[in-house]
């Protein structure tokens, strides 16, 4: 679905998105809903800010000792009777998963929501191996029917409206009465529940992601509101967890700290409905639960981020708050970013994972308003890291030539105060002269990006430094 990033065409994608009225309507939901809910629930917990510090510190400590915590965790998984598969690349992870499914003779594979699964484009691999992957998160199910990528990391179908979902259901669920009423969202939900219930019960393998892996106990944790992740993992014979290496946390106490900020930041709930801790397969005497428990641990570029200016990004707990609060995301939506991870977190992460040559636009398409950082539960300095990418682009001469030369001319003057004062005084007087009738310019050469959309206010004329000098002269 997302095998080929369209991130290089961010501008073109954004152009399309801005023209798409239906999308713009859907995005206004994001702008209203998430923000108010998060603010309200944060205000209700006096310790919220301190918990954010705590969450940040836990992740920092874990990352600094990631090798050791991975070892501890792996031992515990083995003790509990689980299997660990290490995957350096997306390809290795797909292979490991397909192999497990094949060995089990699987036909239907249910899936809980997992961004790593999107990152490695897992569904295509399962299909290619002759099996049927079924996304079970309602949003993921909808976009799977549409053969689309998620447009938001916690609300994959946030770009769609109910009418679109209705027509997809009618197109795909042809075994149901064509005259059924689907005009209400709750009817859509009920239909999805029925259709997916059969898949849950028929599945041979269930694949979930993991929000956390706990070193103390060898446990994987999933957090959902629907309960689909649980039905995915307790009904089939085999449960496969796909997780990346930075999901580690040391202890049950540590994960509790982070869980206190996760749902609050994500959906504005005090706690998500289902937080599930899974350790190994079914135990002797158990009447339900999977008979095999596998964890596929993925690196895919993350180890290379450790020890660099981008290490902080590995604290990310995928809550989505940064995109919920991002004016650029509100304007263009998630698909414009062109790969799995949108919004501010994607603008930092995508260049690391698919290369800054492909995803170079993303860290540039930010006003640096800083609202993402101000809400990030693990306090990732997202604007600072986007700036790091801009620095790398500048050093590697990936910055567009027009920007480079514009900056160069400006820097030439700015570094020479006397020349700057002389030139600017003249320049502004001239500009003021041309602009004096209207007080603004409706078009300017070299600034079409501005004047195509808004007027450019004319300068008053002369410079402040010049006027100040004149005032001082008059006074003395």
């Amino acid at each position, binding site marked *: 679905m997302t095998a080929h990033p369209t991130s290089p065409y961010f501008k073109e994608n954004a152009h399309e998105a801005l023209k798409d009225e239906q999308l713009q309507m859907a995005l206004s939901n994001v702008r209203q*809903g998430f923000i108010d809910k998060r603010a309200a629930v944060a205000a209700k*917990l006096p310790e919220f800010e301190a*918990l954010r510090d*705590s969450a940040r510190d*836990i992740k920092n*400590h874990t990352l*600094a*000792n990631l*090798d*050791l915590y991975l070892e501890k965790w792996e031992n515990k998984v083995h003790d509990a009777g689980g299997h660990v598969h290490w*995957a*350096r690349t997306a390809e290795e992870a797909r292979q490991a998963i397909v192999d497990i499914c094949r060995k089990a003779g699987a036909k239907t594979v249910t899936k809980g929501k997992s961004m790593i699964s999107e990152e490695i484009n897992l569904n295509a691999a399962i299909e290619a191996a002759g099996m049927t992957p079924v996304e079970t998160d*309602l949003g993921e199910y*909808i976009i799977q029917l549409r053969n689309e990528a998620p447009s938001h990391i916690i*609300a*994959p*179908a946030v770009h769609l*409206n109910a009418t679109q979902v209705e027509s997809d259901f009618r197109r795909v669920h042809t075994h149901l009465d064509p005259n059924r009423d689907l005009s209400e*969202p*709750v009817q*859509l*939900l009920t239909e999805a*529940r029925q259709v997916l*219930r059969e898949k*849950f019960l028929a599945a041979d393998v269930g694949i979930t992601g993991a929000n956390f892996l706990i*070193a*103390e106990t060898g*446990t994987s944790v999933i957090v959902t509101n*629907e*309960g689909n992740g*649980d*039905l995915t993992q*307790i*009904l089939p014979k085999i449960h496969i967890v796909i997780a990346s*290496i930075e999901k580690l946390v040391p202890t049950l*106490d540590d994960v*509790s700290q982070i*869980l*206190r900020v996760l749902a609050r930041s994500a*959906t504005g*709930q*005090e706690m998500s*409905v*289902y*937080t*599930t*801790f*899974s*350790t*190994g*397969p*079914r*135990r002797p005497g*158990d*009447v*339900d*639960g999977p008979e095999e428990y596998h964890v596929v641990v993925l690196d895919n570029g993350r*180890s290379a981020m*450790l*020890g660099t200016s981008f290490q902080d990004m590995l604290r990310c707990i995928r809550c989505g708050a940064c995109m919920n609060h991002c004016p650029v995301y509100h304007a263009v939506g998630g698909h414009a970013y062109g790969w799995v991870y949108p919004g501010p977190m994607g603008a930092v992460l995508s260049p690391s994972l698919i290369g800054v040559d492909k995803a170079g636009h993303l860290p540039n398409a930010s006003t640096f308003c800083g609202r993402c950082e101000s809400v990030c539960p693990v306090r990732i300095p997202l604007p600072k890291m986007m700036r790091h990418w801009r620095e790398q682009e500048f050093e590697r001469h990936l910055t567009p030539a027009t920007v480079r030369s514009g900056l160069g001319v400006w820097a030439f003057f700015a570094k020479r105060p006397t020349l700057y004062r002389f030139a600017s005084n003249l320049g502004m007087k001239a500009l003021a002269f041309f602009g004096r009738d209207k007080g603004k310019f409706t078009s300017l050469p070299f600034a079409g990006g501005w004047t195509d959309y808004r007027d450019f206010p004319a300068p008053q004329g002369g410079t402040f430094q010049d006027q100040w000098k004149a005032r001082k002269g008059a006074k003395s």
Partner: protein
Amino acid sequence: MSAREEIFGAVRRSLGVTGQEQPRREAVNERIAKAPRGIVPERGQLSGEALLALFEEQAKATLATIDRVKDRAAVPDAIADFLRRTNLPARLRMGADPRLGEMPWDKTALEVSHGKSDGGDLVAVNHAFAGVAETGTLILTSGPDNPTTLNFLPDYAIVIVDAKDVRGSYEDVWQRIRDRDGKGHMPRTVNWITGPSRSGDIEQKLLLGAHGPRSVHIVLVGE
């Protein structure tokens, strides 16, 4: 080199470590051994009736419903009453938890069957390991006593929790699990359940009963 070795090698190279450093190993061992508590919200640090009242209030805020009864003997009646009020058939599925076994189900007209769910049950009863007042969260552990499938497949989940098992924070409950199963060991599944299943995936509208139960009814037993 295996993928495993290469990943560990890459992590260690990036961090500039060998993995053999004593101070690092000690710090990690100590953190796991001591499992220090972080910040525990004051909100839940209550006892007695105040703690139970917070649990009830928070559970209601998650859109769960809750009945309080005096003792175990009063549970079946309370559940029969809930089913009548809710227009549900008088049929229940439950696991082998001895606490459930002690309850006088036969004094009611309820039809009780035992075991996991295969998806055909409308209403199930499980006994919680604990409740957490901080967020009105129920904590259930897997096993033949309270099969995990009963938490998810039925449309209506009824969960019984003992008042003496209600704690202020998640950390308090982890301690009880460590005391029961031994430090570093976990039941196959620990479920935190905070209200009925829901989804906001269609136009951000909150709808209950996405895949799991559309209703969670809590019976809080004792004072």
